[in-house]
């Protein structure tokens, strides 16, 4: 096309076409009354996203029962590690030091204490960090130390504090199997008691009084670790269960909120459809409008364009504005208008209200276009301009919507010069 358009007749061929022109639907020309669609009701997904509940139905923390259980278990782990180390330091060490000179193999007993202090400390640290040491080697080491100390303390100190393993080692065994099934702890404690019993038997310390003390020791050293272990497991389970229930309640509430929102959006869209096509359909149904009347046909085309755009509006696509314009272009193309749609740049995410303001006048213009139309989009992060140029089809001037800038900063211009009609909407970031 040349610059002589202002004086030259309408060119028979548009300069660029996306598709060959089909038969032109008659009777689309004429003045357009342009009822504005209501734009204040919520509709589409943009409004939904504004509700945090809908976008993110579960606040962090409540949502993950496992996380709640972990948090609750952490307290118990800290307590178990503290008890084990404190006992080792405050009960085990004085016992060994007090009897040091009387022990047959004092360095062995002391070395064993040191070894357990180091490995136990490491095991406790790793447990608190959530990366426990492998249970089997650690348990094996502890039981080996157990047996060695039982041998090294000699007969006299079997039932004294110098035999520090008997009372203190159970807490370290507890750390090795933390978080695993309780039976493993019972097996380890049984092995611990077995070593003690074997030592007693081996030394011939099998008087009824000795066996009674043995039984007391077994009960005294095992009951507390077992209680701590089972108690903490029960608390973690309860916490997990409560969190699971809370999450389920939250999900139900979110679902209900979503359903309510969807229902509102549906009703809002129904109102829009009614505004777009209700009147002309009503007139047709009541016989007030004659389908043969070109003006009625034009109103129908306009209503169809609006409906098509409204349908496109709620589609979830990467570039909704272009999608909506394409919908309008498709409809016009089906009516025999050759459409040249050229888009430059990527529009920023725009709320449905703004998109409606940008696309609506162009969709209306396309609905009345004949022969060809050039639809252009130039978009940047702060500005989007949409334009449509069609051959001027005659008819009185002053058609189309009011021209100017609205509250949303969308500027609308419409012009015709006898050769072309030119409609432009432009949004600029305030």
């Amino acid at each position, binding site marked *: 096309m040349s610059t*002589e358009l202002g004086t030259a007749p309408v060119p028979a061929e548009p*300069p*660029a076409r996306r598709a060959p022109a089909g038969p032109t639907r008659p009777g689309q020309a004429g003045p357009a009354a342009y009822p504005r669609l209501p734009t204040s009701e919520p509709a589409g997904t943009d409004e939904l996203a504004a509700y945090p509940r809908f976008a993110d139905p579960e606040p962090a923390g409540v949502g993950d029962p496992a996380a709640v259980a972990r948090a609750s278990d952490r307290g118990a782990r800290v307590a178990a590690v503290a008890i084990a180390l404190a006992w080792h330091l405050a009960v085990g060490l004085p016992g060994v030091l007090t009897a040091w000179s009387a022990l047959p193999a004092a360095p062995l007993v002391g070395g064993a204490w040191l070894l357990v202090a180091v490995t136990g400390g490491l095991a406790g640290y790793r447990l608190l960090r959530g990366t426990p040491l492998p249970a089997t080697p650690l348990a094996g080491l502890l039981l080996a130390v157990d047996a060695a100390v039982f041998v090294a303390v000699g007969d006299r100190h079997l039932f004294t504090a110098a035999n520090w393993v008997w009372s203190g080692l159970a807490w370290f065994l507890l750390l090795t199997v933390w978080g695993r099934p309780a039976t493993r702890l019972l097996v380890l404690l049984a092995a611990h008691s077995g070593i003690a019993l074997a030592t007693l038997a081996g030394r011939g310390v099998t008087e009824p009084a000795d066996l009674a003390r043995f039984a007391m020791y077994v009960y005294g050293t095992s009951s507390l670790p077992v209680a701590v272990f089972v108690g903490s497991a029960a608390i973690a389970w309860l916490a997990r269960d409560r969190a699971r229930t809370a999450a389920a309640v939250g999900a139900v509430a979110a679902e209900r909120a979503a359903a309510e929102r969807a229902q509102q959006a549906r009703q809002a869209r129904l109102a829009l459809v009614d505004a777009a096509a209700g009147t002309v359909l009503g007139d047709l149904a009541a016989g007030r409008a004659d389908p043969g009347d070109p003006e009625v046909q034009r109103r129908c085309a306009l209503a169809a364009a609006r409906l098509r755009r409204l349908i496109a509006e709620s589609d979830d696509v990467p570039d909704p504005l272009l999608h909506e314009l394409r919908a309008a272009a498709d409809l016009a193309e089906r009516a025999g208008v050759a459409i040249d749609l050229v888009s*430059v740049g990527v529009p920023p995410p725009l709320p449905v209200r703004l998109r409606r303001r940008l696309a609506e006048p162009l969709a209306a213009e396309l609905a009345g276009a004949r022969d060809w139309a050039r639809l252009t989009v*130039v978009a940047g992060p702060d500005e989007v301009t949409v334009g449509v*140029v069609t051959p001027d089809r005659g008819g009185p001037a002053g058609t189309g919507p009011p021209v100017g800038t609205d509250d949303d900063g969308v500027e609308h211009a419409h*012009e015709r010069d006898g050769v072309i009609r030119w409609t432009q909407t432009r949004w600029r970031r305030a």
Partner: protein
Amino acid sequence: MDADAVAESVTGGPPVGVSIVDDHPVVVDGVRAWLATEPRLRVLATGDDPDEVLRAAPEVDVVLLDLRLHGRMVLDKLAELCAAGRRVVVYSEHTDPATMLAALDAGAVAFLAKHEGREHCVATVLAAASDRPYVPPALAGAMVGDPRPDRPALSDKEREALLLWFQSMSKASVARRMRISEHTVKQYVDRARIKYTRAGRPAKTKAALLARAIEDGLVRPEDIGIYRSHAAADRPTP
């Protein structure tokens, strides 16, 4: 018609020699038919290899180059031709803005979308022959929507003229809309194009375009910034 202004300077002289490089014979024939309607243009050689075509007719004034030859984008070849001082008009069906701007950066005198038709094609070739800019609508769209952070700073009027030209493809309409003369519209559009000579790698064609723009009073040397010294150094002897 924009070509008219260009035509004046060409009228009287020998016809402009053009070569067409395209790997589709049907396109070559079509473009040849377009150019044949213009007596000031003469097609001297055609083919699918730029080097062979230029060997056959080394004296051509303008090379019409399809940007995609044998399935490959020949931006590197384009840059080589432009660096050697060849006036290359790129025409392509690839009209995404990034490709168009890349072609300008490489030194193409103009970029023509294949669908833009005969009149734009003739006007572009005639303008190119006299080292004058010609901005078809598709290229105007690419320039006004240029998202690159280092894009040339266009004035509001230049942007508006490009945008409206892209939308309407009618400079008369743009003039009416902006309440200025068609001549001024063309000046705004061409000035915007000249500002793009700064971008990309240096090429003799860019310097020539710039020199002619200064000669025509389209821009002042100081408007071009860093390119000023470059133009002075590369300015061809008249």
